[in-house]
């Protein structure tokens, strides 16, 4: 008995001793797994106001009731959502001393893309010397933007500084219960960008995530919100042509765009994440929900995307054409090689009168990849004089790949004019022969023909992007011929 008491005493006193070594080091990483506490922790960590926490919790609770979608023409391996760390402060990558230490394959790709040496260093994680003063570049940009009243910052910053705007627009285009990956993102999104263009302002430069502070490392659950007020214009670029190696396998991002009367937003994406190796091992799963709400009359949204990376792409940038006379356009190039899978397309939902939409989708599949276009054109009963034209072409290279089109046309108004066209074919031997005969290698010839085939889309990209994108296509298809 006395012995027991001693023990307890010892434990209690010993306990005190133990707790004495309390360390004040902040945890940089959350435990793996997902539950309500994690959601609360993320929100607390970011010092978010109450409404944000509620938004996240609602989304999370809804997500629990949802099932992973299986309708896409994709073979998605089981994803263990409990094996993911949902919040992590960006870890410092080991800095390399010089360009010589960079993976020679990566360097060769950079050279082919024609990326300036300094940028190459940034992308490859080499310590940058003082030649480019990136900070000063950013500040100049920031000043120019601030003069015009444009807000361009990270979404966490916006939550703190512009809660009214966030409250009004966040989740207004993609509600938290929208879809499985959308709900997940709403619950746990880490960061992203926020853009607000005030009335009558034409943004003087292409906004790009590349220049934004803290955003060079794209988060796993990114969230972007763009609001274009009346009569404004902005062109926004996302992504980068350079290959991006990322350790996160699952990416579930959301992009929301709202355009008010007579506003115009042009959103261009070049996605080139790690597609896995030649045998289909590894690679990023890219599940993105992108949607624009053309809320105002005469507003316009234009999506342009060049998708060459990721092992699995599941992405449908859409337009809800609510305002009368609003316009939605979608231009896409999706290239898949080796074991990549892509199921991508768009939704054009015509609600307002005299709305117009245009869809141009070009798929290229090579190797053992599967490439699908899936799209919806919906004309609601009140959408008088809606007009849509869709063209979805597929190019097949190799006899082991697949190209599919799944367009849905739902028309409930008799004044609508909707047209859809799709073709699937391969590169003609006569075309290759013609190029060979003129001294071009077969690989170059294929590059040339593919570039001609996708020109309609590439032309929509901002100039500097377009040049890189063209080269990127050629690289993506390397090794697919012969």
């Amino acid at each position: 008995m006395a012995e027991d008491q001693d023990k307890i005493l010892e434990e209690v006193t010993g306990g005190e001793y133990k707790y004495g070594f309390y360390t004040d080091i902040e945890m940089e990483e959350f435990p793996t797994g997902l539950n309500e506490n994690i959601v609360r922790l993320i929100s607390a960590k970011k010092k978010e106001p109450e409404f944000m926490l509620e938004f996240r919790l609602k989304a999370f609770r809804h997500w629990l009731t949802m099932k992973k979608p299986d309708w896409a023409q994709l073979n998605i391996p089981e994803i263990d959502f409990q094996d993911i760390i949902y919040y992590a402060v960006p870890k410092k990558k080991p800095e390399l001393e010089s360009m010589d230490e960079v993976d020679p394959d990566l360097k060769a790709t950079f050279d082919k893309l024609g990326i300036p040496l300094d940028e190459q260093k940034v992308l490859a994680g080499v310590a940058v010397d003082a030649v480019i003063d990136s900070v000063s570049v950013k500040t100049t940009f920031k000043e120019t933007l601030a003069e015009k009243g444009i807000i361009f910052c990270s979404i966490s910053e916006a939550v703190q500084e512009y809660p009214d705007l966030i409250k009004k627009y966040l989740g207004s285009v993609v509600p938290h219960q929208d879809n499985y990956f959308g709900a997940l993102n709403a619950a746990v999104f880490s960061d992203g960008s926020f853009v607000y263009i005030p009335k009558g302002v034409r943004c003087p430069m292409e906004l790009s995530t590349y220049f934004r502070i803290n955003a060079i490392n794209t988060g796993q659950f990114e969230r972007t919100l763009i609001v274009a007020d009346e009569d404004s214009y902005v062109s926004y670029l996302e992504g980068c042509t350079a290959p991006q190696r990322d350790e996160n396998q699952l990416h579930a991002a959301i992009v929301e765009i709202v355009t008010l009367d007579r506003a115009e937003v042009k959103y261009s994406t070049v996605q080139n994440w790690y597609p896995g190796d030649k045998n289909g091992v590894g690679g990023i799963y890219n599940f993105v929900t992108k949607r624009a709400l053309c809320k105002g009359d005469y507003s316009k949204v234009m999506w342009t995307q060049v998708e060459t990376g990721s092992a699995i792409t599941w992405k449908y940038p859409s337009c809800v054409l609510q305002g009368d006379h609003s316009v939605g356009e979608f231009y896409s190039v999706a290239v898949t090689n080796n074991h990549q899978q892509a199921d991508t397309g768009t939704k054009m939902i015509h609600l307002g009168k005299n709305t117009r939409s245009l869809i141009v989708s070009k798929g290229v599949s090579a190797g053992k990849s599967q490439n699908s276009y899936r799209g919806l054109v919906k004309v609601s009963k009140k959408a008088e004089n809606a007009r849509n034209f869709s063209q979805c072409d597929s190019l097949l290279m190799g006899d082991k790949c697949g190209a599919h089109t799944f367009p849905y046309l739902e028309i409930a108004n008799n004044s609508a004019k909707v047209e859809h066209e799709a073709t699937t074919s391969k590169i003609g031997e006569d075309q290759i022969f013609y190029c060979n005969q003129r001294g071009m290698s077969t690989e170059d010839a294929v590059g040339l023909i593919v570039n001609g085939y996708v020109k309609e889309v590439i032309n929509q990209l901002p100039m500097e992007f377009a040049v890189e994108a063209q080269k990127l296509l050629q690289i993506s298809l390397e090794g697919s011929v012969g």
Partner: protein
Amino acid sequence: MNKTCRIVNLQEEYSQLYKENLSLLENGAPEKMNASRAKAFDLFVEKGIPSNKVEEYKYTNLQPFFKGSFDIALSSDAALEGAAENFNCGVPELDTHNVFLINGWFANQDDCNQLPKGVVVGSIREKAEQYPEVFEKYYNENTPNNLDAMAAMNTAFAQDGAFIYVPKGVVVEKPIQLVNIMSGDNDRLVFQRNLIVVEENAQVKVMLCDHTISPQKFVINNLTEVFVKENSVFDIYNVQNQHNLTTQVSGMYVHQKKHSNILTNNLTLHSGVTRNNIRVTMDDEHCESHVYGLYLSDKNQHVDNFTFIDHAKPNCQSFELFKGVMDDSASGAFTGRVLVRPDAQQTNAYQSNNNLLLTDNAKINSKPQLEIYADDVKCSHGATVGQLDDEAMFYLRARGINQTEGRILLMFAFAYEVIEKIRVEPLKENIRSLVEKRFRGEFDKCDSCVVCGQQGSSVSCL
């Protein structure tokens, strides 16, 4: 005796209906027909009557239509009870061999001696006993296991239907016409199962004419299996002419062999709710298939054409054209799935779906799909939804043609593209005039049809 069943909770009551009457269902039916039931029934119970939650039936929810109180005929006598005996639904100037089926059961047919030697036409029940080798070899062989719930339902419940066998090298000049008559004093549930086998180097043309002649509600599930062997030519024209209370699920499963050439044309002139499941499997090289359809709907009618062209082997060609005119509150749907399997090189597949919407309340959903796993192919699909061309109308009016007449002219021109594809000249002429009348609003029934000629005045189709 007609058996009456009341269906409220689809699954349970259909299961009960099946289980309680299994002995009656099996009574006198060919062995293989009965042997196939159990598996099909399990599949049907598992899948159930499709609602719009099922992707393939996204635009047609069949569930409400399969509820109600129905008579079901479990024997020939019950099916033919009270139905008029002599029908003639010939197309003028078209000499056809007529086969009459009432409520899914074989009733009678023209003298078989007029058919070329060796050609077998008749009731599937009877002929299965007489030609077991043909029946055993083909029955239920073209309905893949994971198939559609409605096909499974048909396999589980069907007892009779038509049987057509054309032996090697025989060319049947006269089209064979299967007249399916729906008649009864109460609402009715009807199953029908047809089997058509066209042997090597043979040719035959079949017309399926569906008529409802009494005003009751009919729920019909019919399925036609077709096997087309090497170098043979096969045409099937399905003229659907039902009243507004009819729900019809019509399956057409065609299996093709080398160098065969088939044509299916679904002409839905009048219907309540119609769902056509058309599946063509090109299981050998150098097959050619033409799959066409025309649907003219008004009132609250609904037509859903679901086609699946399976290019399983290289060097095949398929041509698909579906056109629809939607008036009043009619709704229509089209799904055209083209699958080119791996190594089915040198495939040509063309598909087109065009629709005219005439009113604010009309609706159309179109879903063309291409699924391609081979590279040396030429595939295309197109879908359009629109209205009559104002400029064309102006042109006509400027030449003294009034608006109504101009409209009819333009609609007819739109529909004619499908009619043109009919490969039987007198039938083409007949359909042409039917469609024209349909647009003029004068159409009650095909007046060339004696069935309608006799009773059409008392029973209005419209």
